[in-house]
């Protein structure tokens, strides 16, 4: 019988083989290298850049106010990283998979290897990167000169520990979900946690509770003399979480995926053919089929709910200012696009060939798919905006127009980009597992980076417009953005309408 050390060394070796196998399938190596360099560059920029910000006059006062408000909230930022890691692994069924379930079925891949693979893939996630950059930027702003590097070392070790802890908790929750009545237990438990947070906030005790958590002590210690002891302790914690996380992983992966099996064996009584008030019934039927493909997928449904509720609750509880809220629709809509829209045709899987034999204009198929994607993005980002309105009340005219214009711009922007990617680089993927991704992991990381960067920069421009007294400015700014995105969307549509291009996409997605 192999020892535990042997089993871990085998798992590490197997993970290496799987990562190497996946990396050999990367189509555009140059783009991958460029993407890695950009991400590393941005990480260094966020870690060191804010620390060198110096300004005088009004801007200097604003910066001082920002630093003062952040100084007491580093502990909360650390806690946010942990919460996000847990939420991310929970919503992806324990964690992403290096090989899809059907591909992995013929190989002797252990639960430890699956666990290590999921850990290795954790950073390839939009939310993870944004949270990491945000934390590094906050630490860089509050760390006094001479303490920046040591504080960032502690921040990085905390990110490692939080990722490993989140992964372990994610596996444990997935294990519970796979027990009889586990889905109900997880849903009720999640609801209770959210209700408790809201209640604590309403009673005014949330802030003091957050400050009483060990993350506040870590935040203080990272700026002190004994930072290295904290970093060492966090590294040990990360190592322990990695080792102990293999146990819930083995437990969860040894149980049948009840929620998926329930969906697969569940009965969905057919509804009558829709009779739309406007537009054709054919398109309405196509849209209904596409909506069913989205909402009957465990991974997509869970992802859309988390994306809708998570940032919205943050806006509600933390009382985010409109200047911050304006960034959120772009990020949540990007997250929704990353669930399936970046490879939009994969919704049909192998059924793509059958869909293509239906006597319906290709333009209708494109329109139906684009509409359903836009619906998903508007729904999740709309929840965020709605909860922000509930918390902050209606914004002033210029701010409100800026939020609305920015929201519209980023949705059309992401839709055009996602449809362009779907036409240019289709992939054959099986999205039956919530652990699956709509494109290879390297491509997903690149998509996430590009979407978050573009939408954040766009939102920052509209934040600037909101600070002016000119009501027509955000509307005027939206026009060129919308024109450009519409042109991109029409270009993607033109490519889809070309029979040879469409055949390439169909055959690639259906893998025939």
């Amino acid at each position: 019988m192999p020892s535990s050390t042997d089993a871990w060394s085998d798992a590490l070796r197997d993970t290496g083989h799987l990562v190497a196998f996946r990396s050999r399938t990367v189509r555009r190596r140059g783009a991958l290298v460029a993407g890695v360099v950009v991400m590393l560059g941005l990480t260094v920029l966020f870690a060191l850049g804010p620390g060198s910000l110096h300004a005088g006059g009004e801007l200097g006062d604003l910066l001082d106010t920002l630093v003062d408000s952040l100084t007491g909230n580093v502990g909360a930022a650390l806690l946010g990283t942990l919460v996000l890691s847990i939420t991310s692994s929970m919503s992806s069924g324990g964690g992403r998979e290096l090989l899809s379930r059907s591909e992995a079925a013929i190989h002797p891949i252990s639960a430890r290897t699956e666990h290590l693979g999921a850990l290795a893939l954790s950073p390839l996630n939009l939310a993870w990167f944004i949270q990491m950059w945000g934390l590094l930027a906050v630490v860089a702003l509050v760390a006094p000169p001479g303490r920046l590097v040591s504080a960032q070392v502690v921040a990085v070790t905390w990110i490692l520990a939080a990722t490993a802890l989140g992964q372990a908790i994610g596996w444990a929750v997935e294990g519970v979900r796979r027990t009889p009545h586990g889905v109900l237990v997880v849903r009720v438990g999640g609801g209770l946690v959210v209700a408790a947070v809201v209640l604590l906030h309403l009673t005014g005790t949330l802030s003091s509770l957050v400050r009483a958590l060990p993350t506040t002590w870590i935040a203080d210690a990272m700026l002190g003399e004994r930072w290295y002891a904290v970093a060492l302790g966090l590294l040990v914690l990360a190592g322990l979480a990695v080792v102990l996380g293999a146990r819930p992983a083995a437990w969860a992966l040894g149980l049948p995926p009840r929620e998926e099996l329930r969906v697969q064996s569940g009965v969905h009584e057919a509804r009558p053919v829709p009779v739309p008030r406007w537009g054709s019934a054919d398109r309405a039927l196509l849209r209904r089929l596409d909506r069913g493909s989205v909402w009957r997928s465990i991974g997509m449904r869970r992802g859309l709910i988390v994306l809708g509720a998570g940032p919205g609750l943050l806006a509600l509880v933390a009382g985010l200012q409109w200047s911050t809220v304006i960034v959120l629709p772009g990020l949540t809509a990007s997250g929704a696009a990353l669930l399936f829209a970046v490879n939009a045709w994969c919704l049909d899987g192998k059924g793509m060939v059958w869909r293509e034999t239906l006597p319906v204009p290709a333009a209708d198929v494109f329109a139906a798919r684009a509409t359903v994607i836009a619906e998903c993005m508007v729904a999740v980002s709309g929840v965020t905006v709605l909860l922000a309105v509930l918390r902050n009340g209606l914004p002033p005219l210029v701010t409100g127009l800026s939020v609305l214009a920015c929201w519209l711009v980023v949705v059309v922007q992401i839709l055009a980009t996602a449809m362009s990617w779907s036409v240019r680089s289709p992939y054959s993927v099986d999205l039956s597992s919530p652990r699956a991704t709509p494109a290879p992991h390297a491509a997903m990381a690149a998509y996430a980076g590009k979407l978050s960067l573009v939408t954040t920069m766009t939102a920052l421009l509209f934040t600037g417009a909101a600070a002016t007294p000119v009501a027509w400015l955000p509307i005027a700014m939206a026009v060129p953005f919308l024109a450009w995105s519409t042109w991109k969307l029409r270009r993607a549509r033109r490519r889809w309408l070309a029979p040879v291009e469409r055949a390439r996409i169909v055959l690639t997605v259906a893998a025939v």
Partner: protein
Amino acid sequence: MTHTPAVVVRDLRVRFGDVEAVSGVDLTADSGQATALLGRNGAGKSTTMKVLAGVVPPTAGAVSVAGHDAATDALGVKRVVGYCPDVGGLVPRATPWEHLQLTARLRRVDDWEERGRDMLERFELGDVAHRVVGGFSHGMSRRLSVVLAALHEPAVLLLDEPFDGVDPLGVEATLEVVADARARGACVLLSTHLRDLALKACGTAVVLRGGNRVAAMQAAELTGEAYRALLD
């Protein structure tokens, strides 16, 4: 009056990048007849079927399906064809009934429900009509693909590997569908590796090799030895 076959293929060529999947296939198939398309893996059978179904445009050559040009009128081709693809062919999170509903609606078939129910029963899929097909076995998916291809009683029925992984009852039901289609005057093209079943279902046979047609004959003439000789 001149007789025009339901399917006419002249020097069909299909190229995917550097790979020529079909390189000069000629084929004719008449209404009321079933023609078997035989050949080894990679012979070009499935690609030819996809061209006839309007899914893949021909790179060169002439393809006419029930009077519609596959290169210029793919939508017209799709209206007259019923196609069972070789792999999958089903939207994973939709139910069989939703598949039937969509195909009937888009082909303007009224009062299809009774026939749909009857066909699902014949293929022993009645009990799972409202379950998503993602949980189906391979054989169940194949049987449903045949039902979808035949529901609207197409003028040209294309069945690509319809017997693959299907149990004997499903095979019988598929043979019945072929016989029904022939009886009502439809043209049937059936691609398979199973020579015995091909002979049972079809009157004529066409053998492809390396993207070319190497033989066309009466199915009864295609003995085991003759078939093997054509494959090598």
